[in-house]
């Protein structure tokens, strides 16, 4: 066997061992940094995500949280369910605040993780200029957007991230326009690391947060976070709903490291043979009475995303 081949094989082996270790529950730290007393709704997938984000980040981390469900679920002053420092900040300012914090820690020679944990409204709508500015400046931080596809905290108004056809309190007949493609906006900043994740795959999320925090510069993770009251499905279906989003390729799990795209396992299979989109749509009250025309448009969008990401991964753009 040539030396080159041995090196390649050992690299493959290392990757397999690494993957096994995070697919193995015992590799995840037992510590919880989110106390089991949040005021999040029963079945909230964003709280599930936060558990794993904090397990991956560990105690030497600061969260910056703009107005969103996560500001509220902490509980009532002077108590909080969060066992890491949290800076609750104005809606538009999360990434700007994180920039200052990150610089201050660097000046003090501290390696504290600075993590923004923001909703979709606070990211794709009102916080987008601060986000863009921080990414352009090369701030060393991790920006996480948990996407429940509406303004959840204030009672489910539509956001720029609400998908086409979804009913919210401000789009009672279904949203007439498509979901804003946040990932392509972030990608245009050429960050060293960006990824998508979904609450139904918490170990995948854990691994991505770990990786992101090991890289210097601005990092981004976009998590699809199903929300029982907003999407109108029974609380016990939260994990099932996330898996359906991935299996129908409505949501695609990937990572882009220094510009190189990798589609993650569950989405590889889904992109070859997606489960019927109807399964996802029919199980959510927000898509009730969706017209066949809108449904067709949604199916086309899924197909386009599959094509675009497949081409990028294969290196034919």
């Amino acid at each position, binding site marked *: 066997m040539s030396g080159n081949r041995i090196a390649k094989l050992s690299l493959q082996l290392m990757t397999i061992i690494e993957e096994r270790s995070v697919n193995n*529950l015992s590799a995840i730290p*037992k510590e*919880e940094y*989110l*106390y*089991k*007393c*949040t*005021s*999040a*709704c*029963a*079945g*909230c*997938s964003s*709280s*599930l995500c936060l*558990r794993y984000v904090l397990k991956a980040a560990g105690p030497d981390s600061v969260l910056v949280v703009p107005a969103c469900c996560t500001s509220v*679920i*902490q*509980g*009532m*002053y*002077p*108590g*909080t*369910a*969060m*066992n890491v420092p949290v800076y609750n900040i104005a809606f538009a300012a999360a990434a700007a605040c994180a920039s200052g914090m990150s610089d201050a820690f660097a000046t003090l020679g501290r390696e504290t993780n600075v993590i923004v944990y923001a909703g979709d409204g606070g990211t794709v709508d009102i916080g987008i200029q601060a986000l863009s500015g921080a990414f352009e400046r090369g701030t060393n931080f991790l920006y996480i957007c948990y996407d429940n596809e509406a303004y959840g905290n204030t009672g489910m108004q539509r956001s720029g991230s609400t998908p086409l056809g979804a009913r919210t309190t401000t789009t009672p007949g279904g949203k007439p326009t498509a979901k804003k493609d946040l990932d392509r906006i972030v990608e245009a900043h050429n960050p060293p690391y960006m990824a998508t994740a979904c609450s139904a795959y*918490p*170990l995948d999320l854990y691994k991505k947060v770990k990786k992101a925090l090991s890289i210097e510069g601005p990092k981004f993770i976009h998590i699809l976070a199903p929300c*029982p009251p907003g999407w109108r499905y*029974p*609380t*016990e*279906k*939260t*994990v*099932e709903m996330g898996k359906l989003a991935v299996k129908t390729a409505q949501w695609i799990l990937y990572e882009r490291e220094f510009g190189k795209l990798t589609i993650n396992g569950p989405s590889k299979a889904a992109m070859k043979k997606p489960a019927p989109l109807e399964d996802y749509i029919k199980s959510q009250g927000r898509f009730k009475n969706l017209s066949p025309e809108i449904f067709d448009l949604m199916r086309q969008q899924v197909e386009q995303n599959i094509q675009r990401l497949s081409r990028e991964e294969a290196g034919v753009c």
Partner: protein
Amino acid sequence: MRERLALSRPKEASSGKTGSWRTFRPVVDKEACNACGLCAQYCPDAAIDEELNIDLDYCKGCGICANECPKQAIAMVREER
């Protein structure tokens, strides 16, 4: 020291005992359970510990654990209050 910032400190029950929200309670059939740990992994409220005991002071009764259990070892039983 006088605090100039509104500081909250970590505290159990910062939102009260959220177990009181529950209308259905998860009941584990230990015979059927194979200790895979998936229920604990998926509980949004971290209400299931390593020994797979459920903390009913905080379990909100969402039913995710029962829905995800591969052995159907968890039943959701209506609370009688």
